[in-house]
């Protein structure tokens, strides 16, 4: 049957010559089937061929048996945003194959297990049946491992069909299996058999080709959660408390792994970075606040439900002024929502978290370098400002593989904020914990254990004087809140400034943040081709730097791109500059997937029409 399909002349004649390094591959599998090794092997091989790639894993919220789609985008232009379209399909999940095939681009390639005995339904694509089970069995793998290595069949088939170098596949397997020869050979054998099957049964395809280029030299591949974990380890975090929740878990897993490697004294086995799994998120943030109060650099990582549970403590950190860092690896909410889908829906919640008048510092990393860098920045800011700092990453940044330049070693010393020592106290003859000595709204603190009779102060979430004594006096309350506003203004000045790309002759301004960046960048190229050059500001923190206002004021209106339902960044901008509120146009989408350049450019073009 297989050969028949390929030789149908009506199919081959639609080919229009090869598309090189500019297409997407989707592997549609079921989770728990071990396809992750196959997918990362493919990505790594392509990447090592010098071709810009990006992987996106769309996986279900269970452990095994449900549909998963892994998309590899190959882009000679370096675009790494999600695309809706895909040109190559590896259909490994019978339950979804119909829909998967339907969505395949015209002229696409469709690989599938020969056992399915699929009847072709589309004449504009090429079908490639693969003898998956047979080759897996022939591999000599244990019965228990057979399903797992079966995935290598499609790696081999693809290598042949689109020209992924077998040498790089071998290297990728070596990397993955950390040099273990047995595993490497077993898998490589199946890869070769898969390639051989294509070679000997089908005419060579020239529709989509991977060709070696020089687009990734010096770069590495990493997931945002690994970058964040590594960043925290280099940021000097010393107490980590957490409770597992998708998609934040892998950040702590990475952090712990790096800390075990880099922060443990090999001789004594002692660690400089304590990691504790708490019984829930209330306890996790409580531990972080206790540690921050005692003088540690401390963080937790969680997702939406976690930050809801942390709300009360968020208010304590804000009001009692205790350094703390929460990484919120955002997933789709409200409620339990879609734990394995992305969204930027926690922005308003994080900024306003807790009852009463509260506004928090929020960092918004937009790429791997920032996931790493904000590991330090967040802890620095928490200690400098003596407050809670949120870092809002998301599932797309956190759990997908991204190319990046190697991270730069942090050159600035750790910023520990205004901490008075016993010597300072002896010199100063005491201090007032909440007095605004420097006019920046930030008081001085001492750490418990400081050996001076005047070191102690009393920390509380209730009203207090600037000497940290209990007070119910209206004027004490107002003065304290006024100082907190000054502190917020200080934050404005020292949080990471936006990144701006101002273009001569730009007709429109675009504002976005976080994982929307690749989509916006690509959309701008599309807009430019549509005669709509744009300037772009990527916001990296709340409260907004002054330059945000300056950017907004340059345009009659700016487009604000959000991956949430209510256009939350647009709302915050309107609140920050009510005089420009009417010129802030919200373009928001929220379906659990990273935004595509097509959607962003389309939404803007529609507005401009």
């Amino acid at each position, binding site marked *: 049957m297989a050969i028949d399909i390929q030789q149908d002349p009506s199919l081959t004649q639609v080919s229009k010559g090869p598309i090189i390094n500019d297409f997407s591959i989707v592997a549609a599998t079921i989770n728990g089937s071990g396809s992750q090794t196959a997918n990362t092997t493919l990505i790594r091989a392509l990447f090592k061929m010098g071709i810009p790639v990006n992987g996106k894993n769309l996986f279900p919220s269970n452990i095994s048996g449900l549909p998963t789609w892994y998309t590899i985008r190959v882009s000679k232009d370096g675009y790494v945003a999600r695309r809706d379209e895909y040109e190559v399909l590896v259909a490994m999940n019978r339950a979804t194959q119909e829909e998967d095939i339907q969505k395949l681009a015209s002229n696409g390639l469709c690989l599938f297990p020969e056992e399915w005995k699929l009847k072709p339904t589309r004449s504009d694509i090429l079908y490639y049946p693969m003898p998956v089970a047979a080759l897996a069995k022939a591999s000599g793998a244990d019965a228990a491992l057979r399903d797992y290595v079966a995935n290598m069949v499609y790696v081999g088939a693809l290598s042949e069909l689109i020209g992924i170098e077998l040498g790089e596949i071998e290297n990728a397997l070596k990397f993955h299996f950390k040099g273990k020869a047995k595993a490497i050979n077993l898998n490589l054998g199946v890869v070769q058999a898969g390639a051989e099957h294509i070679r000997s049964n089908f005419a060579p395809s020239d529709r989509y080709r991977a060709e070696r280029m020089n687009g990734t030299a010096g770069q590495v591949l990493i997931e945002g959660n690994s970058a964040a974990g590594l960043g925290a380890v280099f940021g000097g975090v010393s107490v980590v408390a957490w409770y597992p929740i998708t998609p934040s878990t892998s950040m702590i897993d990475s952090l712990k792994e790096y800390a075990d490697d880099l922060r443990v004294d090999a001789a004594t086995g002692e660690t400089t970075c304590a990691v504790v799994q708490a019984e829930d998120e209330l306890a996790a943030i409580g*531990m972080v606040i206790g540690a921050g109060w005692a003088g540690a650099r401390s963080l937790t990582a969680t997702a939406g439900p976690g930050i809801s549970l942390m709300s009360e403590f968020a208010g304590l950190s804000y009001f009692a002024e205790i350094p703390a860092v929460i990484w919120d690896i955002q997933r789709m909410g409200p409620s339990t929502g879609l734990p394995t889908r992305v969204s930027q829906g926690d922005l308003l919640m994080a900024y306003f978290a807790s009852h009463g008048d509260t506004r928090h510092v929020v960092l918004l990393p937009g790429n791997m370098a920032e996931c790493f860098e904000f590991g330090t920045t967040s802890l620095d800011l928490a200690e400098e400002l003596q407050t809670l700092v949120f870092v809002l990453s998301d599932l797309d940044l956190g759990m997908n593989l991204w190319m990046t330049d190697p991270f730069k070693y942090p050159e600035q010393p750790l910023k520990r904020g205004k901490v008075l020592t016993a010597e300072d106290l002896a010199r100063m003859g005491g201090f007032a914990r909440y007095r605004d000595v420097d006019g920046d709204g930030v008081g001085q603190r001492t750490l418990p254990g400081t050996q001076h*009779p005047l070191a102690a102060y009393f920390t509380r979430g209730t009203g207090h004087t600037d000497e940290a004594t209990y007070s119910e006096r209206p004027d004490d309350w107002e003065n304290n809140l006024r100082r907190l506003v000054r502190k917020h203004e200080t934050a404005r000045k020292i949080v990471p400034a936006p990144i701006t790309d101002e273009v001569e002759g730009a007709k429109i301004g675009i504002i976005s943040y976080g994982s929307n960046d690749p989509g916006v960048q690509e959309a701008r190229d599309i807009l430019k081709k549509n005669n709509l050059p744009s300037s772009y500001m990527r916001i990296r923190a709340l409260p907004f730097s002054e330059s945000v206002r300056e950017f907004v004021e340059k345009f009659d209106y700016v487009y604000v791109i959000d991956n949430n339902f209510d256009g939350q960044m647009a709302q915050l901008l309107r609140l920050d500059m009510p005089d420009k509120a009417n010129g802030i146009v919200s373009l928001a989408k929220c379906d659990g997937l990273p935004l595509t350049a097509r959607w962003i450019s389309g939404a803007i073009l529609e507005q401009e029409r």
Partner: protein
Amino acid sequence: MTVAPPPKNTKVNMIGLERADYKGKPSTLCAGCGHDSISAQIIAVCYELSIPPTNVIKLSGIGCSSKTPAYYLNQSHGFNTVHGRMPSVATGATLANHKLIAIGASGDGDTGSIGLGQFKHAVRRNVPMVYIVEDNGVYGLTKGQFSATADEGQKLKYSGVNDLPPLDLCMEALIADCGFVARSFSGDPKQVQALLKAALSHRGTAVIDIISPCVTFNNHDESTKSYAYGKAHEEILQEITYVAPQQEITVDYEEGTTREVKMHDGSKIILKKLGPDHDPTNKYRAMELLERAHQEKHFLTGLLYVNEERATLPELVKVTDTPLVHLPQEKLRPGREALAKVMADLG
């Protein structure tokens, strides 16, 4: 530390501090509140043991009982956290600096109602701290509702009759593998002091549930947490004398009636068995006694159970001997080569 030496004629302890150096701000609790007398014992014990107040942290949740850290040890850092969540804050603080001596003060509402989960998990982790529950069976600060330790059938002025069985916080601690479980009565300064001393020498979590009558909302005679009831039904389990290692006191007790328990820091507590012979290393027995006391509606005071075996959380996590908060940047941030290697490994 640049403290002026105390004037010759005032009494000082072994580290040269006066009793006044251990005081706190004036209490704003009701006159006669049991909690105040517990505060007084904390002051007395810390003075007597010559504990440097600058090494102590005082933590609490929210409630009348949780206000008390402001009323002792002015020279210690204090933290009035949020309701029911002191255990987690103490966990973080002691991980960050395991050399601090942590004293937690809480109420039965703070610990037994909203805080039950955190309490049990902190105990399970063996967070190194003295955990004092000032147990009055009511929410004092919100004006007299029943807490989870209120007696079944008890009446309160505003809340009617309590129809739920009480939780026994000693039992709760015990089955969460607590290594030091004691109960006392705020009206018995001698015993409270002895237990506090023993607790301060314990390496992990030391739980002391101190029945501390709320004179305003829970001093009805039918309550087991009232003074009248306490005095009439108290069944003293043992008497404890603390033997500080710095100053070996030989006690004048009959041979054969004492039982030594070795504390982690080398100090010993000596138990005098007044009630039915109690072996504080026997967990079954402690459980049974507590259950029987519960059914017979009386409370046992004394050291119910002790076990010095369990490692504390900072030990389990294996933090550096130098407290984490004192580590310099070189220890907190790996070197340039380390990052280079990680990057190379990714490539």
